[in-house]
């Protein structure tokens, strides 16, 4: 097992732990929630038919982006009972969680469609070595910092650093910034807000 396998499996172990905690009833106390997170995280490394459990979703989805890992870590911290105000779900996005998720979902949609061949332009290629992409992502991170959406600023910064450091097997910056599960999460946030607005639960 090389380091990039450990990091890849780690991302899926995080996701499985969050999934395990999310399946608990809402009123579950913090101790049970923390225990569930720890147990599922450990189980993810145990072999099933010769492979760690986390290797199965990893085979299908690939390594999760750093952005996804940052959001998963936040979810784990909140689930573990951390109540610092700066961890509040609305504050981490500067009060604009739905807007950031909408931007992420639209970016992912355009990106995947173009990268899979729908156009002659291949934006995935920029992820190997493009000053333009570095500049654009840095600008987005600065904008996020300015807007007090600190989780997005940190996610992009850590994605850049992880890419430079070769954290994952991928040598493409896009694989550190976004992944399909993150896009599904962002889309889910937007759709839920739209449904709530439509049902009159939110003005």
């Amino acid at each position: 097992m090389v380091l990039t396998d450990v990091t890849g499996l780690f991302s899926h172990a995080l996701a499985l732990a969050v999934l395990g905690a999310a399946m608990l009833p809402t009123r579950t106390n913090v101790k049970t929630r923390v225990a569930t997170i720890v147990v599922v995280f450990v189980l993810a490394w145990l072999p099933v038919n010769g492979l760690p459990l986390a290797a199965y979703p990893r085979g299908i989805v690939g390594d999760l982006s750093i952005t996804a890992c940052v959001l998963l870590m936040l979810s784990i911290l909140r689930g573990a009972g951390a109540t610092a105000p700066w961890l509040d779900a609305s504050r981490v996005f500067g009060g604009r969680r739905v807007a950031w998720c909408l931007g992420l979902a639209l970016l992912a949609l355009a990106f995947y469609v173009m990268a899979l061949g729908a156009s002659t332009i291949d934006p995935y290629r920029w992820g190997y070595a493009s000053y333009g992409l570095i500049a654009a992502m840095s600008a987005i991170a600065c904008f996020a910092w300015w807007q007090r959406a600190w989780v997005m600023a940190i996610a992009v910064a850590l994605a850049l650093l992880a890419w430079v450091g070769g954290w994952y097997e991928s040598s493409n910056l896009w694989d550190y910034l976004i992944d399909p599960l993150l896009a599904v999460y962002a889309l889910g946030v937007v759709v839920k807000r739209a449904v709530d607005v439509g049902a009159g639960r939110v003005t």
Partner: protein
Amino acid sequence: MKKLQTARRSWPVLGLVVIAACAGAYRVWHQPPAAAFVVPPAPPVVDTAPRFMTAFASSSQHVQVHAASLVELTDGRVRAFWFAGSREGASDVAIRSAVFDPLNDQWGAEQVVVDRVQTQRDLLRYVKKLGNPVGARAADGSLRLFYVTVSLGGWAGSSITTMTSHDDGETWEPARRLITSPFLNISTLVKSAPVGYTDGTLGLPVYHELVGKFGELLRLDANGTVFDKHRVGAASDHGLQPVMMIESPQRASLLMRYAGPAPQRVLRATTVDAGAHWSAPEKTALPNPNAAVAALRLSDGHMLAVLNHQEESRDSLSLMLSVDGGATWREVYRLEDQRDGGGQGIDAAAFAQRAAILIEQTDVRAVPLVDEFVASAQGPACRGERCGFEFSYPYLLQASNGDIHLVYTWNRAFIKHVVFNRALLDVRAAGAP
């Protein structure tokens, strides 16, 4: 929406962003500069008699085989790779290999190189099936094997996996995954050999077939990591399985299988900047029944291609020659011809009879029992009482002694091998209309 005007902006977070931006720019600055193609050296000119020999490279009976490729070893022998199992895409499919010795014209015993279980253990990822092995020589002298693995769905869900050998294929290091696509890293497949660049990097022709079908040239560094890619055409061109021919340090052309609407023709594209940009793929005059093609450029600029020279079915196989850099082609050898004329197939008895003749006419085969060979062929070739011949997935290699080797799938039952030389080609070309 809440506006958190009272929350402070965190200067450490901004500092982290600035450091990350600088680190990113530094990494881009260190990207390898553009390099030129390595033009394959011309083999020695030797006056020999025309040579044409046929053999079966694979020897296992009652399995389905497909997707053979060739690579020359350092001692002049030629190693073939292919996949074999109960059927294409089955979980028992493994990559197999055998070695041809030109000194005695014999194929050695088959060996299993890697299977699905070993692959998923090396990759620490679930793997459902594998296929399409391509062997190649890296600049550092090691042997690289690229093959396709699928974790979910069909071949459109493929990823490329690679292994390295430092002893010409006797033993292999653990498999590693190539990350080539952002959407689940799927839908990149390999069919033909990589080309070398002067800086020691490789260009691996690959193709996508999920949303759109198009070719690509992946750039791999000395460690085998992808550091760039160049698309060949767009999804609207419906190109698959590119095979490259290097013409000069900056120029190359490639042929592609065509999977789009009629007329069914092989596609061709060219580059004048060592693969960084490609012309829009154009249809050639070569018919193509949505099947793989093989191509090879000889040192005098003539080009060879092996393909099913027809718009439907794969029951014939032809060797084509171009003397004008790929602009026009003519058939110089009908390698296989079992066309049934109507696409209805032939009855099992007729198939067995014809197959027996083809097997008996093969110069070299590991197992002498013709009946057993025929029975192996009937498995994949027949549906009930109707059978159809298939000759597909050709792969060409020119060895350093000048011999030209061709392998192809023979009725999904065996890997057929043909070796010929330039003298034979000259005779055929002189005689062809």
